[in-house]
C-alpha cells in the first residue's frame, strides 16, 4: 500500500495545483489545459483504486471528448494568444462559498457513509461485468433517467441548431 499512498500524494498535488491554475491563469486555453491535468489526475486516482473501467471512461469522455469540444468552442470564438486581463467577472467571489459548501457536503457524505473503514489490502480489480451488472440491476431506474436527460439535451441541441 506504500506505493499507492505515494502516488496518491503525487496525483493529489498535481490536481490541486492544476485546479488553482485553472482559475488563476490569464489565458483561456491555458486554463482549459490545466483542467485536462486535473481530469487526468482523477483518472490516475481511479487506477489506484483499481477501478480500471471508470478510469478509462474518465479519459475517453472528459479528456477525449468534453475537453476537446471545450477547446474547439473557445478556439472558434475567442482564444487569443498571450495574456488577457478581462477574464474574471465581478461575481467570482461568490464561487468561494459555493466551493466550500460543496466540499463540506461531500466530506460529510463520505465520512458519514464510510467512517473509519479502510480499503482492503489486496484490492481486486473491479471488472466491467460487475459494473454493468450494477447498472442494469439495482441502478436501472437512475440509468434510464440519465438516458432521458441526455436524449432531451440532444433533441434540444438539434432544435437550437436547426434554422427552419
Amino acid at each position, binding site marked *: 500500500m506504500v506505493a499507492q499512498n505515494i502516488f496518491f500524494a503525487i496525483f493529489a498535488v498535481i490536481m490541486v495545483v492544476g485546479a488553482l491554475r485553472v482559475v488563476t491563469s490569464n*489565458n483561456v*486555453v*491555458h486554463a482549459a*489545459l490545466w483542467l*485536462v491535468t486535473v481530469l487526468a489526475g482523477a483518472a490516475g486516482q481511479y487506477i489506484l483504486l483499481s477501478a*480500471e*473501467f471508470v478510469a*478509462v*471512461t474518465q*479519459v*475517453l469522455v472528459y*479528456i*477525449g*471528448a468534453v*475537453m*476537446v*469540444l471545450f*477547446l*474547439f468552442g473557445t*478556439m*472558434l470564438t475567442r*482564444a487569443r*494568444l*498571450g495574456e488577457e486581463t478581462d477574464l474574471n467577472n465581478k461575481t467570482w467571489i461568490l464561487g468561494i462559498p459555493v466551493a466550500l459548501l460543496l466540499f463540506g457536503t461531500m466530506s460529510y457524505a463520505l465520512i458519514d457513509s464510510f467512517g473509519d473503514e479502510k480499503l482492503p489490502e489486496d484490492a481486486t*480489480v473491479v*471488472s*466491467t461485468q460487475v459494473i454493468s451488472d450494477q447498472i442494469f440491476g439495482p441502478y436501472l431506474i437512475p440509468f434510464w433517467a440519465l438516458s432521458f436527460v441526455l436524449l432531451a439535451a440532444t433533441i434540444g441541441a438539434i432544435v437550437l441548431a436547426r434554422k427552419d
Partner: protein
Amino acid sequence: MSALLAIDMPYWLQTILRVLGGTVAVLLPAGTIVYVFLFKMMSFMQSRLGPMEAGPYGSLQLFAEVGKWLQKEDLYPDRADKFIFKIAPIVVLTSTFLLVAVVPFGPDAWFTNFEAGVFYALAVSSVSVLGILIAGWASANKYSLLGGLRAAGQLIAYELPMVLAVIGVVIQAGSMNFQEIVMAQNAGEIFGWNGIGNPYILTQMVGFIIFMIAVQAELTQTPFDMPIAESELVSGYMTEYSGFRFLMFFIGEFATAGVFSLIAAALFLGGWGIPFAWFGWDSMDSIDNWMNIVGPLIMFTKMMVLSGIIMWVRFSYPRFREDQLQKFAWKVLIPVSLLNIMATAILKVAF
C-alpha cells in the same frame, strides 16, 4: 514475458524489457510502413523508382531523412505560445506509445494484459486530438488554427463509428480483453468446423469495414486529409513545425497507422494466433511456447497487409469535401454501426 524466456525476472527488468519492446513495436512498423509503402509503393504507383541511392534499393534513405531532421534548428514562430507549441507533438506521440501497450503479440508476449483493453485503446487514441488541436492553436497562424479545428471536428466525428464498430466484436467475444478476443477467434468454430477458427472478419464484416474507414479518418490519411490539405491550408496544424518536432508528428502519423493495424488484426483477423485446432490446443495454458516467437511475426504480417490497404487507399483516392466528410460519418457510418450492434446482439442471444 518471463515464461517466454523460461527464467524468472525481477519486476524492474520486466518493466525495462516491456518498455523497450513497446518502443520497438511502435518504431519498427512505422519505419517499415514509411519505407515499403510511402517510399516504394507510392513511387511504383506513380511510375517512378523512389529513393535508390542510400543503401540497396534506397533502404537506408529513412535513416538519412531522420539524420537530416535531427540536425535542423528547433524553430518556432515569434508570436507562438512557446511552451504549448513545444509539448503538442509530444502529446501526439505519447498517445501512440500508450496505445501499443495493450496489443498482445503472443500467449505470454504482451506488454500489459489490461482487463478493459479494447476500451483503453479507444480512450488513449482519442487523446492525440488534444495534441493536434493545441498544436494548431499555439502556432499563431491562421492556416494552422483552421487545420487544428478541422482535425478536431473530424476526429470526434470518426471516433464514434470506431467505438461502435468495435462493440460488435466485444459482444461476440464476450470480453474487452484483447487476449480473450484473440482466444475466442482462434478457438472458435464455424458451424462445427474448426479448420480456420472463427476470425471475426467473417461475422463482423460490416464492423471491420467501418473500423478501417474510421481508422483512415483518425489517421487523417487521404481521402480524409482535410486537416493538412496542402492546396488549401499549406500543411494545416503542422505548417509551423520543422526539424525534430515535425519528425515527431511524422513518426506519430505512421506509427499510429501501424498500431491501429495491429489492433484491427487482433480484433478482426485472429491476432497472433493460428487456429488452435491445428495443434490440439484448447486453452491459454496448453499453447506451446514457440507461439511467443511466431506470434509477433504473424502480427507483423497482418499489420503489413492492413497498413498496406490503408496506404493503397491513401495513394488512390482524391480528398473529400469538409461537409461530405461530416455527412458520411454522422449519416452513414454511425447508423450502420448501430444497426450492426443490434444485429450482433440479437444473433448472440439467439444462438
